[in-house]
């Protein structure tokens, strides 16, 4: 059986007060707008919107703690890596103003590790941090706030065909199902004395030793898909234009949200085309 995300209806949740289509449209506008800028001053308002959405969502800290901490550590790790190496930033800035430079007292095959702290690296890392955090915070809300029973109808009413809309529905539910199956397989193999953390050998050897986890999870996913296809076939899926049981209707607030999303997108793209919002340092 397909698992579901940890959705529940929350009292006074702002995100849940909107039609899911309106929220998806706003989310897409927000996403494209954020990706239009590298200037941290332009990006900070988006981070503010994202935090506002999180705080008004009524998703509790306990509920989202694990996902949130995972994403924060991921974002911090990559921002820090960029800061250390300077990689990635070279596409948005050409020159660097060095503040401090640390050189290691040893060399490895003629290469001496050097850490350059430059204004550009600091601001590029900060921009990256704000950019990814804004997107991650908005994305993380979706599984907690969107009713899984409405996935299919949401995509259908956004213009997808019956088959694509239902495929999107199944795909969104496949992710937590995959997570559950992974955990069950881990448990089953640990009960046979298998310890993932004690994998030894070279890279290829280590990948081979992942077989006891990877094979059952993949096979289970394939078998699960076959079951789903059989179950759908047995109840006549895809033979006629479908009636969708659930109905969605836009309210005034949904139209306001979509208009706001469109406005943000138009202004962002306009500014970006006029050359505003590129990488900035003081």
């Amino acid at each position, binding site marked *: 059986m397909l698992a579901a995300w940890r959705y529940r209806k929350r009292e006074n949740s702002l995100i849940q007060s909107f039609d899911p289509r309106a929220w998806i449209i706003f989310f897409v506008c927000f996403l494209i707008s954020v990706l239009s800028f590298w200037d941290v001053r332009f990006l900070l308002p988006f981070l503010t919107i994202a935090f506002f959405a999180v705080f008004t969502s009524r998703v509790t800290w306990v509920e989202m703690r694990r996902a949130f901490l995972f994403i924060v550590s991921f974002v911090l790790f990559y921002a820090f890596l960029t800061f250390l190496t300077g990689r990635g930033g070279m596409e948005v800035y050409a020159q660097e103003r060095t503040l401090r430079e640390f050189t290691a007292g040893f060399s490895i095959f003629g290469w001496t590790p050097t850490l350059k702290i430059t204004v550009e690296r600091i601001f590029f890392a900060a921009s990256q941090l704000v950019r990814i955090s804004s997107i991650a915070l908005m994305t993380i809300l979706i599984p907690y706030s969107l009713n899984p029973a409405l996935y299919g109808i949401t995509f259908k009413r956004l213009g997808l065909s019956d088959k694509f809309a239902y495929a999107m529905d199944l795909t969104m539910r496949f992710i937590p199902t995959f997570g559950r199956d992974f955990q069950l397989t881990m448990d089953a193999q640990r009960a*046979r004395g298998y310890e993932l953390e004690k994998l030894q050998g070279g890279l290829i050897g280590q990948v081979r030793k992942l077989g*006891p986890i990877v094979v059952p999870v993949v096979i289970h996913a394939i078998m699960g898909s076959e079951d789903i296809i059989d179950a759908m076939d047995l109840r006549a899926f895809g033979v006629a234009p479908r009636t969708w049981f659930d109905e969605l209707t836009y309210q005034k607030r949904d139209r306001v949200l979509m208009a706001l999303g469109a406005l943000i997108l138009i202004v962002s793209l306009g500014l970006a085309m006029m050359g505003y919002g590129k990488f900035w340092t003081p």
Partner: protein
Amino acid sequence: MTNLPLIVEDLSFKYRDRAGAAIHNLTFEAHAGEILLIAGASGCGKTTLVRCINGLIPRSYKGELSGKISIFGEDVKDWKLSQISQKVGTVLQDPDRQILGTKVVNEVAFGLENLGMPRTEIVTRVNESLEFLKIPQLRNRDTFSLSGGEKQKVALAGVLAMRPSILLLDEPLASLDPASAQEALDMVRLLADQGMTILLVEHRVEDVLRIKPDRVMFMSEGQMRYLGAVQGLSSLVNYHQVKLPAEDVLARAKRDPAPAEIKVLPRVAGLGAEKEALVKFQDVAFGYEAGREVLHGVNLEINRGDVIAVLGPNGAGKTTFVKHAIGLLKPKAGKVLVDGRDTHSASVAEIASMLGYVFQSPSHMLFAPTVREELAFGPTNLKHAKEQVELEVKEALNIVNLTDKENDPPLALSFGQQKRVSIAAILAMQSRILVMDEPTAGQDYQNYMNFMDSILQMPTFEAILFITHDVDLAAIYANRVLIVNDGRLIADGSPHDTLADFEKLKANRLVPTSLLALNLKHFATTGRFLRAEALAHFNL
């Protein structure tokens, strides 16, 4: 004749990727309002027959099909699956494999949505189905939060909403607790009485006989061995292969030689009555989410020499409880000690050498290219010597009767065989305690009785614990029975003390069986619970 709901003529099928035909030359018909029970061992072709009738063969499963299936006089060869699905409804063994909707109402409406019915008609039919199955209160529940019995009813509601004339039920009782199974069967009787044709594939023949099926078909090796009145079945089939009512077995077994005595846990036999606790649960409480406890203050000791059966309804917390024994779950309050060691401070792999745990579903663990390698995985992880591993693998294969499959890929075996591989994989680890979560689910009677006999006689184990819905399995094999309900230990005692209290059984969704009744009747003479064929040779 042509107006019969179902006529099957000379039907044979061979799967494209398998040797030999799965079913051969089956010919029968089914009448309106009839319950036709289809019985037979695993791999006898029951499921293939169901797939032929519901149209998945040849539309989804390819192979060589011959013969003819007619529904209300019309050959279905050229029908689309959608046409067939409006006449033939199918409920699969495992509702988890059938339910697609996230909410009950969406699940029940799914087929009607696909047929493009008007919304008002869908609402009417959904409500009718839920009312008929007496589950309107589940309408807006999330499907994943339902118990096994509720899921099966919801799956049935989704099929009934399409108003089929023929209903195919493929082992619908396999994952249900006894009371849920009884409720499901009562519903089947009601549907037949209203004129629906029902083909019921089921291992649990004894349970089905209670609702008086009109005819029984017995299949073996893809062929029909018997088709006729229920009374004829008992005298025809081997009672070692099909579980028959205890009185019937008692009468027939008197003519056969007495079964061999089982020497339970030979390693601890004759060590005296002194109890040694191998696992201790001390005030164990647990919840998957903060504020929602599913185990409440469990205190228990698993002692040397114990063969424990854990009974209880679907969703009672049985699996959660036993997962604590191997440290896969750690108590939120209290502690679990395995061989004196707190599971909080030991890894699962460390505990695995002491306690072997067989999971419910084999598909979550099988990965190796051959059965032999699959079985060697556990003992090798536990650093057993190579020669020892070979011996352990051989012995485990013998016990589950899979020596001829040693070099086959486990993933290519049938579900029943995979289940036996998963049990053998743990047996090969030669742990001191064995814990099994529903070891007999999806197995045919003869196979599971054989491997249960063998497991109990294995020289390595000092204690065995198994979760089951089968009251007879608990009565025959266990020397101690636990009843778990709502995360609490409701009863803990000898099989006689626990299972003789019918009120308690009923309160915990367990149903007394004919074998239990027979054993209780003769308990003063026997002093213990025995299988029917052993009772037949007792001086009763």
